[in-house]
């Protein structure tokens, strides 16, 4: 820790709500990205799930939007320490998307327009824990926040909620994604403060 700067308070932080360890509350919605914002037209957008046997299920935008969707109210926790509470989304549950897939795979690797990847256990995508979300705050999801659609897995740090998701590979073997291969924790539970390798 550095020397304390006399009189420095920092921006918009409060201790009122119960947050995971090490987090502070924000009221804006910070935009973090490892590269330029992909601009993906819904005309060419496609989302796929591939199984460990190599079978693929795909949806174009019309097919995706025809699937049952639900309103989601969740808190977001970013590994860079900000948390945003009570956010509202609309999305298709991964339970719906995975319903047709014949798989016994334990691991998933999400791929995104722009090249970003993140890995999660399949178990963390099921049972109402994950969605492919296409609306935020009642509006179509903005490109800078991951639109047309992003993965939303709020019980893990937000880097797992991959923006601009295009495909999820179901795999027998785990493969670390973009940040998981650079020191960030392979699982990422904010309540156990699993930010880095070895946490």
């Amino acid at each position, binding site marked *: 820790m550095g020397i304390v700067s006399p009189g420095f308070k920092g921006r918009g932080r409060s201790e009122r709500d119960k947050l995971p360890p090490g987090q502070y509350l924000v009221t804006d919605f910070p935009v973090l990205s490892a590269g*330029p*914002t992909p601009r993906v037209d819904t005309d060419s957008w496609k989302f796929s799930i591939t199984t460990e046997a190599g079978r693929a299920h795909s949806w174009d935008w019309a097919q995706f939007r025809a699937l049952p969707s639900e309103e989601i109210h969740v808190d977001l926790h970013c590994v860079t320490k900000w948390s945003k509470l009570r956010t509202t989304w609309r999305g298709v549950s991964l339970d719906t998307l995975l319903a047709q897939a014949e798989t016994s795979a334990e691991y998933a690797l999400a791929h995104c327009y722009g*090249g970003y990847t993140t890995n999660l256990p399949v178990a963390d995508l099921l049972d109402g824990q994950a969605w492919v979300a296409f609306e935020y705050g009642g509006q179509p999801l903005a490109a800078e926040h991951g639109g047309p659609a992003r993965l939303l897995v709020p019980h893990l740090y937000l880097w797992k909620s991959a923006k601009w998701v295009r495909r999820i590979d179901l795999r027998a073997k785990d493969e670390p994604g973009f*940040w998981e291969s*650079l020191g960030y924790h392979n699982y990422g539970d904010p309540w156990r403060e699993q930010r880095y390798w070895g946490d």
Partner: protein
Amino acid sequence: MNTHLDGNVLGGTLGEIFAVDITSAVGQCASCGTSEAMGEALVYTDAPGLVARCRSCGEVVLRVNRTGGRAWLDMRGISCLELRTPGQ
């Protein structure tokens, strides 16, 4: 707005790891083969780590994640790095 900065911002973080200046080092992009000074890279800083991309092809040339007393560095995106070392 998500824009990038230039490679000058790598100087601080990598200056704690390398004993020589990285921004004037010339790196060859492993994806497209273009050589450029690291100061010319496109660097995305609004992320859980610094991500530097090749000015020519946009692929990642270098990534670094720093916390407390640990750093993780991925330089697979550079196939060769030419540095100035102290001395003659």
